[in-house]
């Protein structure tokens, strides 16, 4: 598909809009504006949120459960509750037809959460959002948001110190919020990605590449996880 000059400019405009959309998403999350985050999603029934450790929460009810119910549960009265993530390393591809887009980001950040004993804990939590977008009435919306993580540890113990299961028991297990974690409607669509000394990190999602239409991308199995032999040779 040969794009006209105007279409080429439109696609660059789309990239700019998408970068701002996800920047806004992060600022709103930090400010506990969870209802506004929910509004950034498409109104389609097939939207979903797929968060590592929870699974896929389907449709508007699932996304609402994750971004409003779950985050309000974590925040409580929001005093001393802190969730700052950054948006870096964007890899964005907009379809030639300008109707969909696929993108990856790295999102290093910090959180402060209450522990079961009432004290507060400072955490390093880094996510790697892999997102499909869809344009609705000329406006970009989040369609599918997948959120694998790379590290989770508290301020005083590194991701290596808390390996071998202590990450879950030592961080998640001590947090007041953990009891209210929503259960996914179905299993997560990607492999667990949290740091572990027992696994070699792999490419969780294939990198976005130029494409013409969503149908073409779906045929390529775009987000399929790559295999990895771990013996010094990369699998095809």
């Amino acid at each position, binding site marked *: 598909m040969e794009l006209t000059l105007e279409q080429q400019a439109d696609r660059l405009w789309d990239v700019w809009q998408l970068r701002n959309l996800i920047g806004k998403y992060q600022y709103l999350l930090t400010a506990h504006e969870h209802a506004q985050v929910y509004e950034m999603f498409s109104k389609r029934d097939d939207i979903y949120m797929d968060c590592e450790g929870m699974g896929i929460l389907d449709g508007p009810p699932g996304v609402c459960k994750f971004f409003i119910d779950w985050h309000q549960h974590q925040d409580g009265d929001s005093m001393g509750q802190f969730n700052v993530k950054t948006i870096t390393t964007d890899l964005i591809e907009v379809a030639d037809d300008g109707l969909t887009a696929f993108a990856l980001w790295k999102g290093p950040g910090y959180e402060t959460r209450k522990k079961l004993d009432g004290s507060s804990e400072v955490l390093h939590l880094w996510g790697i959002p892999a997102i499909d977008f869809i344009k609705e009435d000329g406006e970009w919306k989040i369609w599918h948001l997948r959120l694998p993580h790379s590290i989770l540890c508290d301020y005083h113990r*590194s991701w290596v110190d808390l390996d071998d299961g202590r990450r879950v028991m030592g961080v998640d297990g001590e947090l007041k919020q953990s009891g209210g974690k929503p259960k996914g409607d179905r299993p997560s669509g990607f492999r667990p990605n949290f740091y572990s000394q027992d696994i070699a990190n792999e*490419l969780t999602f294939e990198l976005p590449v130029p494409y013409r239409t969503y149908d073409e991308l779906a045929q390529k199995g775009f987000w399929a996880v790559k295999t990895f032999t771990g013996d010094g040779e990369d699998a095809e």
Partner: protein
Amino acid sequence: MELTLEQKIERLQDAQQIRNLMASFSYLQAAHEHGRVPGLFSNREDAYVDCEGMGMFEGADGIRRFLHDWQWSLDGDGKGSFNEHFLASEVLEVAGDGKTARGLWMAPGCETRKLNSTGKMTALWVWCRYAVDFIKSDEGWKIWHLRIPYDVVCDYHASWVEKDCKTLVNDIAYNSKPKADRPSGFVPALFSMEKTTDLFFTPPGPYDTEDDLTAAGFWMQ
């Protein structure tokens, strides 16, 4: 060089493709896809990687020795070995003629490496920069010259002030170290109490052609 509207749009497309190329480098490195990383580079004989503390690795063979062989040497079987850097503070200029480009990024991150002194996997904060020349090929934009100066390397539990960065770097375990083709072309940047931090690499400014890239003093302080 005065650009037409069409040329300006082309330069913006170039910048977006280069941004995606550098992000691909970042994601593939973190995922131990070392076999795919050399493919992001130009196959010109004058392509190179210049990494602080290692030296300059030239041409396709040198690039493979550094980005494939050396990375596997650090990773061992890959289990627990971890290398997550992100791209920030981008300054990117595409030549007016659209054939080359030059970019500068800060790349804060963290790594997990085995230390010789303890024999244990250790969590490290590692911040570096990428000072990169790009060249357009028949296959699109490629990395031409990649320079990697380091800002800080420190243990999770001891800051770069408390433990000397260079001593810590020299303690990182590996199987075998590839020999560089030439000494590094830039002054070491790694934090030390004995030196000051300077610009190291000048942020790129607008330029017209490849010839401007070789103008004296463009990169180096």
